[in-house]
């Protein structure tokens, strides 16, 4: 079969649409791709996260402040929060789109999902920054 995708006499698809590659939804493969990129980023970040949380278990308030406010810990946690929040937002959107069939409920669920992910991310980032900024370990 001849490739006639660029020929507008045969195909309704314009060459521009083909170059953009966004498809019918207008989003292309962004969702899928960012889900993979954040998945790859999550692996080292989560390994570091587990070690940090293990160090925090049962610690006093002063110890916890000292650990979280360490620049390396704070930076790793901030990166982890950004990557994880995006990954979980994209992941749950797939679950919603698979199982919620009523259009109105689906849109409401996707919006709620976005709100939840942003609230989690902002709460974590604000707390990390508040604890760490301006604090120098002596």
């Amino acid at each position, binding site marked *: 079969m001849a490739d006639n995708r660029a020929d507008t006499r045969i195909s309704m698809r314009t060459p521009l649409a083909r170059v953009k590659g966004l498809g019918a939804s207008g989003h292309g493969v962004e969702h899928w791709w960012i889900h993979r990129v954040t998945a790859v980023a999550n692996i080292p970040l989560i390994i570091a996260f587990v070690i940090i949380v293990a*160090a925090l*278990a049962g610690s006093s308030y002063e110890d916890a402040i000292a650990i979280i406010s360490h620049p390396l810990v704070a930076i790793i946690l901030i990166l982890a929060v950004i990557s994880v929040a995006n990954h979980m937002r994209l992941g749950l959107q797939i679950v919603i789109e698979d199982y919620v069939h009523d259009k109105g409920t689906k849109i409401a669920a996707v919006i709620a999902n976005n709100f939840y992910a942003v609230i989690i991310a902002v709460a974590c980032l604000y*707390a990390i920054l508040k604890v760490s900024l301006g604090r120098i370990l002596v």
Partner: protein
Amino acid sequence: MAEAKVAPRPLSPHLQIYRWSWTMAMSVFHRATGIALYVGIALFAIWLVALASGPSAFDAVQWFFGSPIGYLILFGYTWVLMHHMLGGVRHLVWDFGYGMEAAQRINMARFTLIGSIALTLVIWVVAFIAF
């Protein structure tokens, strides 16, 4: 069109019709663990916000996580996290086009479960020794 005989349309069977296989179980687990992590991360956010709020809020949250229920949640969360991570690696391997053969699929699915349990135990043993 005198007697339009409607042939029984093929229907996609429900989940409970299928015989459980390793790959199916681990696929369902991957999704379930993803949802559990989605909900569970709120606990980490609460812990961080409590730390940022001050000593009294922090002590209350830290007391909860130090209680038997808290430890059970943290242990479960560790396993769920490791399971989802290994399941994700499995998906990344598939994305590169490897591990599609039947034997490889089943072995990878088994490794996801065994590996996640092993990793969880190692993390907790190491955490108890080191910290």
